[in-house]
């Protein structure tokens, strides 16, 4: 079973590309092309299973991007026999991630403020999904990065958040420092089944909230009328918007337009924040 995986990434407006603090990763990808801020891979659901992960490093902490990158790589590089990510394995993996982070950030002398900021640690969300050959998928999440499963024109799963109203400015995140490596963290888990033709979208919070809000704002129309409306002008259907993304320039235009579009109360449709979408389409 083959998957076409596309990853789109853009920093906050006003930030440089090297200040982007999200991260994404795919296990065993065969890279097809890389263009600007986007990457495109082919991968197989096989043995070992396919894993995808995204993470969102917190703005308020330092070296958050490094922490997010360590977390997604660790999730995707787990052994096939690991199965679902159990609590004892999570604690061991996190301990290893923390050691790696400390080593990377301590590699050079730092000014007094950077040294003191390290004591607070870096924070990040994490969302990782595993696709098994038996047709099942398993997802773990901490924070407000989200997974959406789409079949045809229907969103059949949204996890861990299901409505735009659930997003807050203070989600629970994973810290790179810990006083106790045995302390359990509040990962939430969800499982489901995939079939050929399904699409999975992993999104960090700004675009995930946009997607749920846009979905909630869609008028309820019949399938035929929706198809006619979309084929006429594309409309502003959120699924159509992210399905048609192909490369860096149309992704940048999509994000720019949604950051400037306004809701009724004057707030932007999409909050200004780092944006990451990983799209996975399952093909025969």
């Amino acid at each position, binding site marked *: 079973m083959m998957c076409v995986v596309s990853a789109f990434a853009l920093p906050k407006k006003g930030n440089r590309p*090297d200040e982007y603090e999200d991260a994404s990763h795919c296990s065993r990808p065969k890279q097809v092309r890389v263009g600007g801020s986007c990457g495109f891979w082919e991968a197989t659901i096989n043995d070992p299973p396919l894993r995808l992960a995204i993470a969102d490093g917190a703005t308020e902490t330092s070296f958050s991007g490094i922490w997010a990158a360590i977390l997604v790589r660790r999730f995707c590089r787990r052994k096939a026999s690991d199965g679902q990510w159990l609590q004892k394995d999570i604690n061991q993996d996190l301990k290893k991630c923390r050691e790696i982070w400390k080593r990377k950030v301590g590699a050079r002398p730092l000014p007094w403020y950077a040294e*003191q900021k390290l004591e607070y640690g870096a924070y990040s969300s994490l969302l990782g999904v595993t696709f098994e050959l038996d047709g099942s998928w398993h997802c773990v999440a901490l924070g407000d990065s989200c997974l959406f499963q789409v079949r045809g024109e229907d969103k059949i799963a949204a996890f861990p958040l299901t409505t735009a109203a659930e997003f807050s400015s203070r989600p629970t995140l994973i810290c790179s420092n810990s006083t106790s490596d045995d302390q359990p963290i509040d990962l939430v888990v969800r499982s489901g089944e995939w079939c050929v033709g399904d699409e999975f979208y992993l999104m960090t919070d700004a675009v995930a909230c946009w997607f749920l809000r846009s979905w909630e704002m869609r008028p309820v129309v019949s399938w035929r009328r929706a198809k006619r409306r979309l084929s006429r002008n594309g409309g502003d259907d959120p699924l159509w918007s992210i399905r048609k993304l192909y490369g860096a320039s149309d992704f940048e235009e999509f994000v720019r337009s949604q950051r400037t579009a306004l809701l009724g109360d004057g707030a932007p449709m999409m909050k200004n924040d780092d944006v990451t979408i990983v799209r996975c389409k399952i093909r025969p």
Partner: protein
Amino acid sequence: MPYQAEVSRSNPSCFLFLIDQSGSMGEVVDPTNLQALDKPVTVDGQTFTHTASGQTKAQAVADAINRLLQNLVIKCAKSEGVRDYYHVGVIGYGGDNTAGRVQPAFSAGLAGREMVPISEIANTPARIDERSKKVSDGAGGLVEQNVKFPIWFEPLASGGTPMCAAFNRATTILGSWLQQHPTGFPPIVINITDGESTDGDPASAAETLKQLQTDDGAVILFNVHISTKQLKPIEFPDTDVTLPDEHAKLLFKMSSCLPPYMQQMASQEGIPAGANTRGFVFNAKMEQVIQFLDIGTRPSNLR
């Protein structure tokens, strides 16, 4: 809605602290903390066997401001350096009865500067002290650990309280700031004082300051009154009915209401806050000053 603007490097905001440096700020914070003298001392016919010891109000406020600057630098610090989300000014006011002294209060490399980007503050402390702090040893106990404590602002206490002149100076400084940053999150001014103005009624000067605005809202003015009297502090009131005297009522009237995001922060700290709650503390002890400064300077919307 006001007070929603994102604070960013291209559109920073600012804090301006007005610090009372009058003679009475040289009094100790805790007058009940007595230390026995080696031998009794007689002054004006009165014999004293003990002296009040401990930090003075000026020293305690200087520590609070230095700690706040340290925390603000750390908040703005990222992997590549300190991001200039904020500029900060500290103005001291005091002086003898013939000539008030209202001047920038940064020391050493930043001496004379009215408004300084936070990255420059980070890289230009007057000195870095080492102080000991108790930290967890990870096994349920505490250990002493040396921590760096940067100093930018030194205590000073002499003369009167030219508060009107201080507000007028703040208006001049912020007028210039607003010309360069007309659309940013509005400046926040925090006035810390232990007494009454000695150069006239400051109400009018405070009102002029609060009339300044950006596209996102008016300048915010908060007042912190500190006291060594053993009286109960009055924090974040929403009416002057409970205030004990005209001086307190004046400071209350001069203080801006808390913007909505600060009301939320105060509520999270267990302080009831609504639309009429003012950024004002009367008879504050140092722990209230520190909490007040934290709520008043915590960013709402940092990009």
